[in-house]
């Protein structure tokens, strides 16, 4: 069976997530993918053994709303996305401000870093 990756506008992510929270879904994971025109952020939620995938697109430099006030463990995933992809996420309940991952290269998967690498 093919999985559904539901695309929503990044402005409506909070209301989507609130609905899932009300329906007693739990957060499974959040991850970012660097794509040509920006980034995709994929949110996975679960209820029992079922899952729901919600995806948003964001442009480089655009800010995304944190969902950590709705799903508390989201702070970890959002800090990771910030530290590895350089995506700015507003309102993270426990914001490390770039200090969660102590990597040598800051935001190694961001467009800026990848473009610089190609330029070399």
């Amino acid at each position, binding site marked *: 069976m093919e*999985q559904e990756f539901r695309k929503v506008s990044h402005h409506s992510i909070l209301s989507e997530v609130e609905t899932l929270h009300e329906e007693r879904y739990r*957060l499974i994971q959040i991850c970012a*993918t660097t794509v040509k025109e920006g980034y995709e952020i*994929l949110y996975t939620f679960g209820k029992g053994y079922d*899952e729901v995938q919600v995806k948003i697109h964001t442009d480089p430099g655009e800010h995304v709303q944190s969902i950590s006030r709705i799903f*508390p463990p989201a702070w*970890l995933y959002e800090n990771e996305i910030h530290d590895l992809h350089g995506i700015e996420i507003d309102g993270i309940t426990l914001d490390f401000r770039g*200090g969660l991952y102590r*990597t040598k290269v800051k935001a190694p*998967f961001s467009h800026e870093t990848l473009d610089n690498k190609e330029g070399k």
Partner: protein
Amino acid sequence: MSSRSVIPFGPQHPVLPEPIHLDLVLEDEKVVEAVPSIGFVHRGLESLVTKKDFKEMVYVAERICGICSFGHGFGYCDAVEHIMDIQVTERANYLRTILFELSRMHSHILWLGLMADAFGFENLFMDTWRIREKVLDMLEAATGGRVIFSILDVGGLRKDIPDDMLKGFLPVLKDIEKELAVDIRTFLNDGAVKSRLCGVGVLSAEEVENLGCCGPFLRGSGVKRDSRKLGYAAYDDIDFDIVTSTDCDTYGRTYVRANEILQSIRIIRQAVEKIPAGEVMVPVKGFPNGEHMTRLEQPRGEACYYVKANGTKFLERMRVRTPTFANIPALTQTLQGCELADVPILVVAIDPCISCTER
């Protein structure tokens, strides 16, 4: 009012085989806050998908971690197989199940040893690791590797494991079961051991769900959920129980892991009995195009493998959400309010795998 002080825990610490760092804010001997930081050995393996052929990436996925290597390879292959609509043969599915359960056994036994070491019971540590060697010997006989097996491939397995060899594992498993029963009795009944585990790091079922926990850490608080029940590989055809504990503390998590080893033995016995004859590999043609998220039960809990492909031999994205990563919020929660002396026990209680986390 007592004054606060901050002490670093890790990245180098006797109970940590791998580097993770916690800033512990203390009031006298009590931890009031724990702030984690990771990334000391981050390898960026996920980014190799844009440089390595999607079939070569199986080797990379297996090398994410030495303890969960089979699961990582399996998760990656399963995601690519879903995208390419590849039906793995039944025999390959049974062999994958057997190898996965042997991996779970050696991981859980390793953890029992590390926990014994953390609370200072060195003989128990040595005995559990002695038993673990027998599991590694079986894996070496079957695959040629003790840590990294390199037997998985997109479409099945690179080689078959003869039925005679599989049947030869059964008496070894019987021995392991018998010897392990003595150690498990000590873990679960010894007064000194219980004094270090009972009532330490208590999290209710509601709390572990809200904190996004997974694996034995989740089931140790009474939540009956195990991703093997999703029915991947041959788990649909095999009868096994989800081990849970309502103790909700480190003792409960120990109980779950100890008894899951016995469930793994039960699964392997059934799989060896039921395994059908046939091929272990199907031909793989073309390149993957699409995306898929595979969820499976690693020894430390549910792991997620997201693969996005674009129809070329290079993938666009591979993302691994490891169980240790998912359990970090719960770790920081259990550390709040604990005694400083209990910190090593609580860190080991999530069975931290930093290689996985620093993929």
